[in-house]
């Protein structure tokens, strides 16, 4: 069963320098919310930004990771 720490680590490894917060929404290890701030998102559309995160987990999203809610932003982006 994935943990929020494991998800955070894997996102950080895939996007070096990213600031990542992952919450386990239900405590059940299958519904997560990730907030990721990375300069890798510069110039990318939201779709492309979210795909970068989904790509870290491949088929696990929809499998063991039932739901992964994503919020992305770039460091210069004050949202």
């Amino acid at each position, binding site marked *: 069963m994935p943990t929020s720490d494991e998800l955070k680590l894997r996102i950080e490894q895939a996007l070096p320098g990213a600031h990542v917060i992952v919450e386990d929404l239900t405590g059940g290890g299958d519904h997560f919310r990730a907030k990721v701030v990375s300069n890798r998102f510069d110039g990318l559309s*939201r*779709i492309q930004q979210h795909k970068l995160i*989904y790509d870290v987990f491949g*088929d696990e*999203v929809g499998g063991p990771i039932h739901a*992964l809610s994503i919020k992305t932003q770039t460091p210069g982006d004050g949202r």
Partner: protein
Amino acid sequence: MTNQEIRTFIENAVKENRVMLFMKGTPDQPACGFSMRASGALNALGVQYAALDILPDPRIREELSAVSGWPTIPQLFVDGELVGGSDIVMEMLESGELADLLGVEQPAPSDAPAPEEQPRQAPIGIENRLS
């Protein structure tokens, strides 16, 4: 139905419907909170849209994700392009970008849908709004 037929059906649905939502359940009976939020966003804007329940056959989801490259449900397409899943749809609803994209007025904040509600029970059949 073969997988290829399902894929062709999906591709045609995206082509023929300006606003096309693939979801779990139906707009009247969403079967997942994320799908409920996405259809609720479109309802809040009062736009006409087509919706397809992906639950009746697991191959619908497999083929849809193969076509779009997007792993999760719901998926909203506008003018044949993937806009995103529920996170992106909700962000765009709040920022007014979704209203702009769809060419409608941004509703007053009180008209926004209640974001957190318990999903209702899954519907039994497919409600095909694609006719």
